[in-house]
């Protein structure tokens, strides 16, 4: 088994008197899709924000490529190859796909002492990267607002991959999407994984997780309840662990297994 790209060990995070995380451990291997499951309030968001440098852990260690590291800012994490695609903050709908794709990292072309945005290069790369992800843009200067929710997530993922992400954290990428768009995003995850990038896929939808996941870690009330390999665990078990058990089982019975 390859060495993990990133490893978080016994992470604790306290906000004043509130213990948001109380000993969470996870590791991400190259080319795997590691699903992080948990109900609302389980600590998923706090945990990925710790992983992406937004929060500093109160206790615990973060290892990148086996070396201990402390992120001072999201930029540090990005530099270390950890990219995060946030559910609603991924893209600016008023701006073109190219402008979004290169936002903050615009290529420049020098003309004498002046430096201009190199649209020729930017457009060409954007079209090519989007094509690799299976999205055919009408034109690179079409606004992101004209894309569907799934396509927007895919642009954000393509951007992270192009800029050298080794670990890609996806924060509930499918929660606001329709059926087909969800499928598109899941297939994008599969493509990204083939490049050897480790994907952390946060969701509370067990079925989406099982569709692409290699390993599954369940968070409940700020703790990891353990990590299971694909094939070792049944959907019902994951669902149970997420919800913390009993009452959901009863509820599920009365709803005829549709939850």
């Amino acid at each position, binding site marked *: 088994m390859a060495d993990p790209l990133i490893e978080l060990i016994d992470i604790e995070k306290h906000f004043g008197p509130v213990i948001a995380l109380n000993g969470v451990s996870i590791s991400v291997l190259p080319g795997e899709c590691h699903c992080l499951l948990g109900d609302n309030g389980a600590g998923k968001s706090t945990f990925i924000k710790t992983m992406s440098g937004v929060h500093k852990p109160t206790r615990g260690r973060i290892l990148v490529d086996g070396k201990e590291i402390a992120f001072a800012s*999201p*930029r540090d994490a*990005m530099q270390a190859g950890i990219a*995060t695609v*946030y559910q609603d*903050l*991924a*893209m*600016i*709908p*008023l*701006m073109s796909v190219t*402008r979004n794709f*290169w*936002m*903050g*990292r*615009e290529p*420049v072309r020098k003309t004498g002492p002046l*430096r*201009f*945005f190199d649209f020729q290069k930017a457009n060409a790369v954007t*079209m*090519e990267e989007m*094509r690799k992800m*299976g*999205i*055919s*843009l*009408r*034109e690179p200067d079409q*606004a992101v*607002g*004209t*894309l569907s929710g799934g396509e927007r997530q895919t642009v954000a993922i393509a951007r992270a991959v192009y800029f050298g992400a080794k670990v890609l954290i996806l924060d509930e990428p499918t929660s606001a999407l329709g*059926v*087909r768009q*969800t*499928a*598109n995003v*899941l*297939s994008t*995850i*599969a493509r990204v994984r083939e490049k050897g990038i480790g994907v952390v896929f946060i969701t509370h*939808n067990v*079925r*989406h997780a099982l*569709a*692409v996941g290699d390993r599954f870690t369940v968070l409940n009330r700020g703790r990891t309840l353990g990590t299971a390999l694909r094939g070792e665990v049944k959907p019902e078990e994951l669902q149970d662990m997420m919800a913390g058990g009993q009452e959901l089982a009863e509820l599920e019975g009365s709803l005829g297994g*549709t939850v």
Partner: protein
Amino acid sequence: MTDRHAQGAAQKPAQEPAQAKSPPSAAKPAADIIADERVRKVPAWRKALIRPELGAICGTILVFAFFAVIAGNSGMFAPEGIMNWGVVAAQFAVIAVGACLLMIAGEFDLSVGSMIGFSGIIIALLSVTLHYPVWFAILAAFAVAIAIGALNGYLVIKTGLPSFIVTLAFLYILRGLTIFISITTTRQTIIGGVREVAAGDPVAWLFGGKVLGGLFMWLADIGAIGKFVAGPRAGQPVVDGIPVLIVWALVLVAFGHVLLTRTRFGNWIFASGGDAQAARYVGVPVDRVKILMFMFSAFCATVFATCQVMEFGSAAADRGLLKEFEAIISVVIGGALLTGGYGSVVGAALGALIFGVVQQGLFFAGVESSLFRVFLGAILLMAVILNTYIRRMITGER
């Protein structure tokens, strides 16, 4: 039910996109793959037409056509008539460029009008009353104004208050200070005599007077433009050059347009106004961009003020009243979104042109000048409605 479908679709993700898009056939070049049946092909003419400035372009054509009909033989489109509304439009354009970039970056500056009065008084006070050289007075006015612009921006960023409120406070603070300073030092609200002290100054010519005088003399000699036939200026061309204010307007519009659409900083302006948080997450220095745009807005206001002081030879504490709104109206007619992230400098310049032509055109047409506001309000409303439709077409907003 929906969830069952979701399950089915989710179980086999790899095959799914092949159905969503047409299957990529290896033999065809990449461009042929485009075949999402839900995306209509857009003809090239339509793409060229559907742009942020379209509303302003239509408005400009409409306004010119209107005045060509009702004031066509009043001299409005003769050289001196063109200079007349050209200068007024240029005044609006100078402050509109600053307001436009700032609005696209997601902020307002309501202190522009007060800043114009303030900068003007600083120049006149330092040069006429305190006998400093004019170049020093002008540089000092720019330095103070830009510093106040930076303070505006700093307060907006640090407090998180809407710029509407912060700059509204400065609208009052600066206007009050201007009147106070002017009255306590000179016992009046108008300081004259600037033209006399500015003669031969190494910097003042940049803001007053005209350029290309020789060209216009030549044009008059060959009969392309008329000459005065009587009076003290008999024999001189009726238009003896292009006011530097128009040059400033053109330079600022060109600079703003290139900066916004062709540079990396321009992308940051769009991003800061479009979604500041998303921009921060990818490393755009949003705070710096916004503060710089407040400073640029103050710079533009001071260019306006300096040109006005040089033209009139005086500064007055009540100059620039309501200019902030006129700048914002020009920008909005030009297609910019009030909440930021979208807009065009060229559009704002056309908005300023519409503004200038309407204001002076009604005078040429001999229409009651109070109708100017009625007309302007109507144009504003029409342009904004049209702009909203255009923007939705471009950005896919619903």
